[in-house]
């Protein structure tokens, strides 16, 4: 029982990373109907950028093995540094997302959907290569940001301070996103554009700006996920974007692509399924289990868990 709870907790942490990445896929898909293959690689670059920002704040990779935690003076400064890092990294990653959209997708706005898909794949290769040139082919160690602070719950289940921080950050970001989309004027513009591109234009919405902002926000969330992933797994490698991106995309579809709460739900679900399968079946079969569940769910609910049966756009 303890083992199950422990694995569920691990899955929750892992799932929150998938959920953050999945949000970018789902937002972009909702608005321009494009599977943004480069998104996973933006996540990877986000991890590297966060690493650079951490270095800028004086947290170096070489200190990775320092057991006392990296920032002098306890937990509060650590959290402040992390928050600053996350904000800065998100900003830079967001800008990369905007550039990618501008260079590779906007010229193809009126082209067939599959054309933009190939352009996205090309962009993914480019970003992967950037990551490879920047940090080399080997996995890059990530500093242990929090010292080994952990709590023991119910006797034997341990949860790290880091895990709590990760889940809190994810939930905050998702809540902010939900608020932004539901309550602000820009969010309303995004929903309108996603629903009907042309009518929104007639209503005076700056569609190009809205799409740019969508890419910006999606990439920002991926950047945050990059830092969190690095903290959690203690390494980042240029191919990680592809791996995590595939899972996150699966999560987005599982929840119902284009649906924001769906992406969160899908992310958490994939994380949980993975953790349970790793424990009780075998890590080798985990991809089979994850995609098997995906296919089963889509066969029963063809539009994902929370997706509505929406018509395909022209």
């Amino acid at each position, binding site marked *: 029982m303890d083992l199950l709870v422990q694995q569920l907790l691990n899955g929750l942490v892992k799932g929150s990373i998938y959920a953050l990445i999945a949000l970018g896929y789902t937002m972009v898909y909702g608005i321009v109907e494009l599977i943004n293959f480069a998104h996973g690689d933006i996540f990877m670059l986000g991890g590297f950028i966060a690493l650079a920002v951490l270095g800028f704040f004086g947290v170096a990779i070489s200190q990775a093995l320092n057991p006392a935690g990296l920032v002098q003076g306890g937990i509060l400064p650590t959290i402040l540094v992390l928050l600053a890092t996350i904000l800065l990294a998100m900003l830079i990653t967001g800008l990369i997302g905007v550039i990618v959209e501008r260079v590779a997708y906007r010229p193809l706005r009126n082209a067939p959907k599959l054309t933009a898909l190939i352009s996205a*794949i090309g962009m993914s290769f480019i970003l992967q290569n950037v990551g490879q040139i920047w940090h080399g082919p080997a996995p890059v160690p990530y500093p242990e940001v929090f010292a080994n602070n952990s709590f023991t719950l119910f006797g034997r289940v341990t949860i790290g301070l880091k895990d709590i921080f990760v889940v809190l950050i994810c939930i905050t970001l998702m809540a902010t996103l939900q608020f932004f989309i539901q309550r602000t004027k820009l969010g309303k513009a995004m929903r309108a554009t996603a629903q009907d591109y042309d*009518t929104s234009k007639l209503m005076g919405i700056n569609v190009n700006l809205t799409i740019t902002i969508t890419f910006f926000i999606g990439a920002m969330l991926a950047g945050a996920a990059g830092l969190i992933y690095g903290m959690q797994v203690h390494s980042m490698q240029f191919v990680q974007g592809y791996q995590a991106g595939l899972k996150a995309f699966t999560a987005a579809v599982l929840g119902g692509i284009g649906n924001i709460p769906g992406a969160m739900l899908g992310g958490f679900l994939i994380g949980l399924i993975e953790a349970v399968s790793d424990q009780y079946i075998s890590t080798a079969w985990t991809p*089979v289990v994850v995609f098997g569940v995906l296919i089963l769910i*889509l066969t029963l609910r*063809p539009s994902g868990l929370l997706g509505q049966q929406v018509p395909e756009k022209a």
Partner: protein
Amino acid sequence: MQATKTPATPPQGRTMRRVLEGSFTRGQIIGGLIALAVLIALPFIYNKDNLTAWNMKAIFVEPPVLIGTMADAAQYVILAIGLNIVVGFAGLLDLGYAAFFAFGAYTYAFLASGHLAQLTGGKIQIHLSFWLVLFIAAAVSAFFGALLGSPTLRLRGDYLAIVTLGFGEIVPAVFLNLGNIKIGDTSINLTGGVDGISGVDKPGIATFGLGSGICRNLKMNPNPLTGGCRLNNLNPEPYYFLYIGIVVLLVIAVSNMRSSRLGRAWMAIREDEIAAAAMGIDTVKTKLLAFASGAALAGVAGVMFGAKLSLVGPNSFDFNTSVFILCMVILGGIGNIYGVIVGALILYLTQTIFLINLPNALNKLGTDNKIEFLAKTDWSGLKFMIYGIILVVLMIVRPEGLIPSARRKAELRGETGEPRALVAGAAGRGSDEAERANPVATAERESLYDMQTEEQPTERNDR
């Protein structure tokens, strides 16, 4: 690049005429024959003896390497043609096509290698002929194509894509994991795991009573078991000719399929599934047949892969392979067989020859001309970036693909520069004009189905 391949024989005899007439224009037949002639002549012109005789150095790549690479490219040409049936004709986005490639390759590896003997301690020895397994593997892959296609029937658009992607991930993972099945304390290695199945048989060729002495002259090994010849990897030329032959046959077959009732039904479904169903097309059967036909071609390519490489492992069939084939189809010109052949050749040769040799060539260029920047940079690290840039730029410059199908060209010409809103209303008008300006396009058989329904979302809203 000359690459279109069409019939080996001009339309002379009655049967031949019937096979070719319906599906090929005169231009296609002539162009195909010229391309075929060029391809057949290639090993005779570009070979070591000639290079020495003309006192020339190899251009970019040594002759045997080029011929071997072309034989590998033939597998990808077939894969691209097969995926084009699913994505181009029937309009079903398949992101896990490499799975069927894997079924074909593993079928051949099981039926034509020492693996089963090893597995059963020599009790079962199966060494089926390459030619027989071509058909068996096509059937096996087609069966799995229909099987894996069946859950997708209710799905639309990208949900379908993700389910195929799921299968594309599951199939190689299963082949990998079946290499280590633990039952109690014994572990069974069914598929060779990550190392795969090695020592797969080479294709054999009958000598038609000429005796195995002729094998050496044809650069093959004699096969004492059958009295025929066996291909070997030292001389890729027999592979090259053999595979070109298979490609030619499949191009004729798929072209005929495309203009058959079934092919027209695929295109009708691609344009508007509901309208197609209303016209009496059995959409379930038609879609499954698209998956099965596409998969059958992948099965054939899988056998060719196993026979050429002699090694079948799970890593050759991952998501990257699926994406690579999809790129070939879209980049070449989705829906157009000749387009996807060109796309497959260009992308395969880019990846295997151009990008591999580019770093050294650039460095050499820099040293020769004293351009420090060219000479000093380590270009090999930039391979994928160059590849990515090629993809992005090509798509932006030619969104319709290199050799688009007439339909798609017409659609895009009607659309260029206009926002989607206006296009949705005016699509019919726009492309009608385009087609009037382009009589060749109108003559294409495809435009029989030119209903321009792709841009009319209103009917679908009710679903």
